[in-house]
C-alpha cells in the first residue's frame, strides 16, 4: 500500500496577510494544495510559488515555471503557478498537485486540476527537490478571507 495522504498544514483567515508560507515540506514525495473561497484586496490571480531552501528565498523569476501547452506542447515562461485564469477580488479557489515534489534532478510537475480550457501542467526546471510552498496574489496585497489546505505523502 502506498503511504497515505496526511494533512500537513492549513490556513483559515483570521487577519489579513500578503502570503501564506508552508515550510518544512522536504520530506514529502507528493504534495496537494487546495484553496477555498479566498478573497483578495487587489484584483489578481491566486498563485503558488515554491522554494528549494525552505523559504529563505522563492522561485519568482520568469521561467522558473514553464507552462506546457496542451495544444502543441510548447512552453511559456511564468513567474508563478497561477491557479485560475480570471483576475478577481471575489472568492476564488484552486488546486495544484505536485506528483514528484521532492525528487532531485527531474523537472518537477505542477498539475493544476481545475477543469477548464487553459490550465494544465507546469514544469519547474529545478535539479533540487522542493521544500516550501507559498500562496499569494499575483497583484500583491492581502488575502482577506478563505482557507488553504496542504496535504502530503511521504
Amino acid at each position, binding site marked *: 500500500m502506498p503511504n497515505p495522504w496526511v494533512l500537513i498544514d492549513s490556513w483559515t483567515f483570521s487577519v489579513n496577510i500578503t502570503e501564506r508560507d508552508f515550510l518544512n515540506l522536504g520530506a514529502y514525495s507528493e504534495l496537494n494544495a487546495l484553496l477555498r473561497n479566498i478573497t483578495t484586496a487587489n484584483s489578481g490571480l491566486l498563485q503558488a510559488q515554491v522554494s528549494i531552501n525552505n523559504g529563505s528565498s522563492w522561485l519568482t523569476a520568469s521561467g522558473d515555471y514553464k507552462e*506546457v*501547452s496542451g495544444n*502543441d506542447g510548447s512552453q511559456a515562461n511564468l513567474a508563478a503557478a497561477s491557479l485560475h485564469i480570471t483576475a478577481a477580488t471575489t472568492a476564488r479557489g484552486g488546486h495544484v498537485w505536485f506528483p514528484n515534489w521532492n525528487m532531485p534532478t527531474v523537472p518537477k510537475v505542477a498539475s493544476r486540476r481545475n477543469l477548464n480550457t487553459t490550465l494544465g*501542467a507546469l*514544469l519547474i526546471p529545478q535539479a533540487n527537490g522542493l521544500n516550501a510552498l507559498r500562496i499569494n496574489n499575483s497583484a500583491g496585497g492581502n488575502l482577506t478571507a478563505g482557507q488553504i489546505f496542504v496535504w502530503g505523502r*511521504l
Partner: protein
Amino acid sequence: MAGFASVATMSPSGIANADFAGLGSYSELMLVINARTCAIAQTCLVQASIDGGSSWLTASGDYKLLGTTGAHPLTDRTQIALTNVAGSPLSSVLWFPWWNLVGKWKQAFIISGNEGLTQFMVANNAALNALRVFNGASANFTGGTIYILGKP
C-alpha cells in the same frame, strides 16, 4: 511505500523510437517530456507493450479516447497523441495511475492537456510493462529529455 522514483532518463537523438522496457513492477507510471525536438515539427505519440517491448499495441482500438463530452462509443486510436497539433520543441506529462493492474483497462491522463485532463484508455486487461515514445511521420528525435517516473 515511497512515492514516485526516477526510473529512466533519455535524451534521444537520431533515433525514431525511444523505448523504455522493464517497467512491469510499477503500479503507477508518469512520462515527463521536456522540450523534445525533432527534425520537422510533429506531434509526439505513445504506445505501450504487454510483453516487455517485444511487440507494441498498435491496432486501432488498442487505445480509446474519452472526449470531454463523455460520448460513447469511445473513439478508437492506434496510439496516444500527446498534443492536438504538431510542435517542436514539445513538452507533455502523461500519467498512468494503474499501469500494471491486471484485469482492467488502463487509464492514461495527459495532465498537460488543455482540458485539464485528457483521458485515454489502453484497452487491454494485461499488465503493461514497456512504453514507446515516438513522433509523427516517423521523424527522428533531435533533442530534449524524456523522464520515466514510477511508483512501486
